[in-house]
């Protein structure tokens, strides 16, 4: 177990090294000086700024400096917001994104799995068609359109829920639902086809031949096996929620990290872009590791651990 974890951690660090390197050189390749859009910058002042941000150093020195501080989670100061460190920005905005993301993941998983199971159990019947129509619509309506539809109906027309910002639980409902729509639809389809496969498998026949009731067979035998593909989808799910947050946070005016990232992209705030990209990568790599560990727990055939650690 310890050996496996160590191996995975080394892998994560190597991946991070590549990601930092690539983003660093990509941003170096970006057109113009980071201060180009600041109109009132005299050449003398610009030189001073470059000095202050270490931009006069040879590129390889800049690179190693950046690499070194990045591994200490120090991404330097923001270029646009004077006096703010990238790390500060991340620490301030990430909690919003985290709450929103976790809420969306829970919605997508619970309703997606439920719809998929209903569709499979009622295969080729009304329940199946309804669930699959919802799923196809969910995949076809992009999250940002879903977000505006929800805003329009619940906030503008019905005035039932707050339209923007992030102050109470009620504020999180619309953005979380909008964020969950597409992955929810994917999970429902995944769950349906996996459940159909499982329901036709031999061991379900065995379970029935023991005299177990339909309900026990479906929920005790089928569900546990059918949910495995959904567990492997958790990695892509995190990615989807993360990238979805860029737009949803913008539309709902939530001061989360996704929004910060989008603002930094529009402002060409290179240090923030780099910092958030690296942070996102860490987040993804760690969640993929967690998903793999979880998978080992759910599927007894996959031994993440060696013999000693298994119970």
């Amino acid at each position, binding site marked *: 177990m310890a050996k496996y974890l160590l191996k995975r951690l080394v892998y994560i660090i190597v991946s991070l090294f590549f990601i930092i390197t690539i983003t660093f050189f990509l941003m170096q390749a970006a057109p113009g000086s980071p201060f180009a859009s600041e109109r009132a910058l005299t050449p003398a002042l610009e030189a001073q700024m470059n000095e202050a941000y270490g931009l006069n150093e040879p590129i390889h020195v800049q690179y190693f400096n950046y690499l070194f501080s990045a591994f200490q989670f120090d991404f330097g100061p923001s270029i646009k917001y004077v006096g703010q460190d990238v790390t500060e920005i991340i620490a301030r905005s990430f909690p919003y994104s985290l709450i929103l993301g976790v809420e969306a993941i829970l919605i997508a998983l619970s309703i997606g799995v439920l719809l998929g199971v209903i569709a499979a159990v009622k295969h080729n019947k009304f329940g199946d068609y309804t669930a699959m129509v919802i799923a196809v619509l969910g995949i076809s309506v992009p999250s940002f359109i879903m977000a505006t539809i929800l805003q329009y109906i619940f906030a503008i027309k019905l005035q039932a829920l707050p339209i923007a910002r992030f102050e109470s639980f009620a504020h999180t409902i619309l953005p979380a639902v909008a964020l969950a729509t597409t992955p929810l639809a994917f999970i429902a389809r995944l769950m349906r086809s996996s459940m159909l496969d499982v329901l036709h498998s*031999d061991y379900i026949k*065995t*379970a029935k031949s023991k005299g177990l009731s339909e309900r026990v067979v479906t929920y005790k035998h089928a569900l546990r096996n059918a949910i495995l593909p959904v567990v492997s989808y958790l990695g892509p799910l995190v990615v989807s929620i993360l990238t979805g947050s860029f737009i949803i946070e913008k539309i709902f005016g939530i001061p989360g990290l996704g929004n910060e990232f989008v603002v930094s992209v529009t402002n060409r705030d290179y240090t923030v872009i780099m910092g958030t990209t690296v942070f996102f990568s860490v987040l993804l790599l760690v969640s993929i590791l967690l998903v793999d560990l979880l998978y080992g727990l759910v599927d007894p055939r996959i031994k993440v651990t060696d013999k000693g650690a298994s119970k």
Partner: protein
Amino acid sequence: MSKLLEVKDLAIYFDTYQAEVQAVRGVSFELDEKETLAIVGESGSGKSVTAQSLMRLTPMPPGKFAGGSILFNGEDLTKKSESQMESIRGKDISMIFQDPMTSLNPTMTIGKQIAEGLIKHQNMSKKEAHNRGVELLKLVGIPNPEKRINQYPHEYSGGMRQRAMIAIALACNPKVLIADEPTTALDVTIQAQILDLMRDLQQKTGTAIILITHDLGVVANAASRVAVMYGGKIVETGNVDEIFYNPKHPYTWGLLSSMPKINNGEEELQAIPGSPPDLADPPKGCPFVARCPYAMKLCENHMPEYTNLSDTQKTACWLLDERAPEVEPPESAIVGGAKVHG
């Protein structure tokens, strides 16, 4: 004396989107207590559908009973409700399947899979069911059962999984055990072990067995009576000696010819040319007519009645009519002096 199980004119059709497939077309047989009946036939003959429908495990729809009855202890299983069937499955009739690799739930320990039936049918506590599970695993010859019972199927070998399947099936001392090709997916050496085990357990528990197979070698080893199925019908039935030494149906001859024998090492195996009939459009007459080397004009459009050759042997073939030409079974279908019944 009333029979344990009596199947009368059973017909099972499947609605596929192309056509209605008549998988089983009027099958009748009986099963006595403590005996072993083998149902033999090639794939597509309807033998597995027959077996699964005895427990009402055939998915319906698309399948449906198109006639006939299944009397178990005098009660018609085709008329039972689903919940009534649940209390029969696993308790009175149980089943083992062809492929032990796929017929056990991969995410549940063997112990739990054995315990489920015990808890349901015998009201055992978890603890009691666990203890009984250990006994059962010992009974089916799994070494170190106290440890093995907490393992998952992937930690078992193929032969051991089939033993575990048998333990699950026999957990509640069923009166009938249906074994659907129980050895087909196993290595030859393991096959013999599993057949020995089944015979052994039958003597201990007195369970009647319906053995579904395409392998006459297995039949010779394990069964006392045989029903030969072809094209959704039973074409010949008799006890093992009659089927092996005095077969009358050309299809049985064909099956015997295609069986490898020890004492004719030099001879080639005789395959039956052609393929089984299309049951979406079943032949009007004898199902075997298209592949039968002795087919006569009337065979095409008229299904032969059964001719009773003895108390136990019945054959449906026009060759047994007195007006038909005399035919001798081919050389290759004659089972040599070797003793068949073990």
